[in-house]
């Protein structure tokens, strides 16, 4: 394959990002203003946090369709616990992340212990988790105490809380993925699960943990957005699993496993939000906006499959001895 295309494929997200920014900057003066860019990052925290979580799953060549429902159920559980036990918001945050992790653990049990395909398991829990939330609330809106919104609007040293969580999580995830045994072994499993097993990598335990992480991140992501709104609607997070997967894939994660990074997920989520904001800025017809987003997601998946195609060619078996160059 031509080296130019190779480089383009590897840095597809960055290239698309720059083009998108330039386009909107030309179309709408003021788009590149600091305040607007800050808002974009703040708004991408919601999808971005869950995208970092799902990147762990995608790295093992798995999938988690339940994140949208976890975004709804975990904060709901936290809200109920906060109300009934009179807990503060920080404690509620911890309960929410723990609840998300627990929901992820349910996925993990079915996937690893009972050996059911992740797609099917998380499709089932997508409905189950949301159904359980609807049962708890009778599909009514759930209101959080005013302290919740104060938490969402607060900032530390001028950095808004959502960005703080988003950035903090991205840094931690990056270090876990690149500098720990757990992280490197996740890449190994995604590259070749059978070889990983033969090399003594605890494949089952690793696969279980990535779903717990994805659940915990989805819980955190839901909490971060709700803390900005102050209430939880019955339809909260519905369909968001696709935004989350799109963000991760747009950030370079491969659905075939073994490729992806935490910062990639950040870039992917921010890119999607940039497009959304940019479309509003430039006054594109409201009804055309989903189509533009769809085109970007399609582009991301196309790049992923081109990359995979290239990898396959490299892996193809050769019988005839090569000649020395």
């Amino acid at each position, binding site marked *: 394959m031509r080296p130019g295309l190779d480089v383009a494929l590897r840095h597809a997200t960055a290239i698309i990002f720059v083009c998108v920014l330039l386009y909107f900057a030309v179309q709408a003066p003021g788009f590149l203003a600091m305040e607007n860019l800050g808002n974009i990052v703040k708004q991408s925290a919601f999808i971005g946090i869950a995208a970092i979580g799902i990147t762990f799953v995608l790295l093992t060549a798995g999938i988690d369709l339940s994140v949208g429902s976890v975004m709804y159920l975990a904060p709901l559980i936290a809200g109920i616990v906060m109300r009934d036990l009179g807990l503060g918001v920080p404690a509620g945050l911890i309960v929410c992340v723990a609840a998300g992790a627990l929901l992820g653990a349910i996925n993990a049990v079915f996937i690893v212990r009972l050996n059911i395909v992740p797609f099917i398991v998380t499709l089932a829990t997508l409905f189950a988790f949301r159904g359980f939330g609807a049962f708890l609330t009778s599909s009514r809106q759930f209101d959080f105490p005013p302290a919740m919104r104060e938490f969402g609007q607060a900032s530390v040293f001028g950095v808004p809380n959502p960005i703080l969580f988003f950035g903090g999580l991205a840094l931690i995830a990056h270090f876990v993925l690149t500098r720990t045994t757990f992280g490197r072994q996740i890449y190994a499993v995604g590259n070749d699960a059978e070889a990983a097993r033969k*090399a*003594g990598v605890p494949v089952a335990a690793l696969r279980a943990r990535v779903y717990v992480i994805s659940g915990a991140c989805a819980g955190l992501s839901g909490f971060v957005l709700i803390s900005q709104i102050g209430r939880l609607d019955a339809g909260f997070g519905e369909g968001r699993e696709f935004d989350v997967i799109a963000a991760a894939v747009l950030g370079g994660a491969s659905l075939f496993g073994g490729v992806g990074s935490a910062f990639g997920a950040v870039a992917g989520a921010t890119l999607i939000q940039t497009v959304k904001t940019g479309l509003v800025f430039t006054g594109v017809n409201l009804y055309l906006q989903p189509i533009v987003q769809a085109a970007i997601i399609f582009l991301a998946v196309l790049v992923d499959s081109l990359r995979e195609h290239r990898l396959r060619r490299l892996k193809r078996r050769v019988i005839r*001895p*090569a000649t020395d160059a």
Partner: protein
Amino acid sequence: MTALLSFKALSKDWFGVPAVSDLTLEVARGSTLGLIGENGAGKSTLMNMVGGVVTPSDGEMSWKGEAYAPRSAADAAVRGIAFIHQELNLFTNLSIAENVFIDSFPKRFGMIDRTRIREDTAALLARLELDHSPETLVAELAPGERQIVEIAKALHREADLIIFDEPTTSLTPRETARLFDVIARLKAEGRTVIYISHILSDVKMLCDEVAVLRDGRLVEAGPAEVFDVGRMIRSMIGRELAGMFPARTAAPQADVVFEAEGLGQPGVLEAVSLNVRAGEVLGLFGLMGSGRSELARVIFGLDPVERGSLRLGGRELAGGPGARIAAGLAFVTENRRDEGLMLDAPVAENMSLVAVRTFGRGPLAVLDRGAHELATERMRGEIGVRAGDIARQPVKALSGGNQQKVVIGKWLMSGPRLFILDEPTRGVDVGAKYEIYALADRLAASGAGILFISSELEELIGMCDRVMVMSRGEVTAEFAAPFDRVKILAAAFREAVA
């Protein structure tokens, strides 16, 4: 010398079919053992037992004087046994250093100690003379270099026994030479090596002991000095075949049905030409990885081909499998369960899969169920499938032999002119084998050409009019009946035998 690894009356059978039987052998510490045998002689099964991938059905192994019964591949690795497989177990998305340390990263403050793995790996690579930074991604390495990384992994784990399984198949001559240097150094360090290869002259050169397997049994073992290549080959063969094959009913006709000329695909095939006459059974023999199945896939249009031409009945073959089936090609794949059948679907549905469009009626091509039932029922009788209700019974409920007949029947319904049979009797019991041979003979007698691919030399000798031999993607020889087994095998091994 003491035995590092020994087998006592070791056996393994798969569903009653023995793969290794009653094998007793000792591997001396510090020796280099060459393990040779035909395809299916039991080499892989034996080594998989050593590697903890396969559990023996009977007998014992001992390692360093103690009873040895590994439960997993990791178990064997911990004891100090390393495998360098044909397909390497490396992670292409990780660096060399990360691959070496994947199961046991040294830690510092809870994080991977990157300085240490880099330095340790650099030292290993220097010992093996691989000139790459430890941080290079494995994806960027050539096949030969990847193999050196595997060896670095083995050295890092202080492996006492290193098993090489066909290590030179995808290496350039220069890479092979370097590998042999490295093996010589491993020997000098006192490590024990088991070297499995089809390249007998390499075995002769590298090894100080040779063990020959045939049909899962140890034929003979001894110091390499007493084994010349001719003796190795003669020792690998030697089975009697009488009454295993039906007599051929008709002689080949004069006209050529199928012709391939100068087929070439970089890295896979080189200038392969062949022709099959009507009524002829042309055998294609070769060792594992010789390119037989790849050739079949190219002929059938499943894989691309860069050079050469294909003609069926005088007409150029082009396009994908669909067009080639329409032109009169049939392909019984070597992988019946995954590629040849829809296991959960009924027998009848499997049989009519290729010819299903001929049962469409009217503008919407609605399936004519009556005609379909009639035709599949007739085909069942013709090929003698033993099944209950073929419209309901799923194919997976049939025995291997009957399944294979369904695959052949599926193609018969479209009336092809050239049959490619790739390992048609694999995993089939002796009785059903005979029926499949008889079916092949009937196809030939009815005027179709047959390309019979097999790694069992006996069945080719028993069934074919001619046998062609492939090795490393090219045709190395062609033989006509009466066949000389030693010569055919020698051609497959690329060795000259007087």
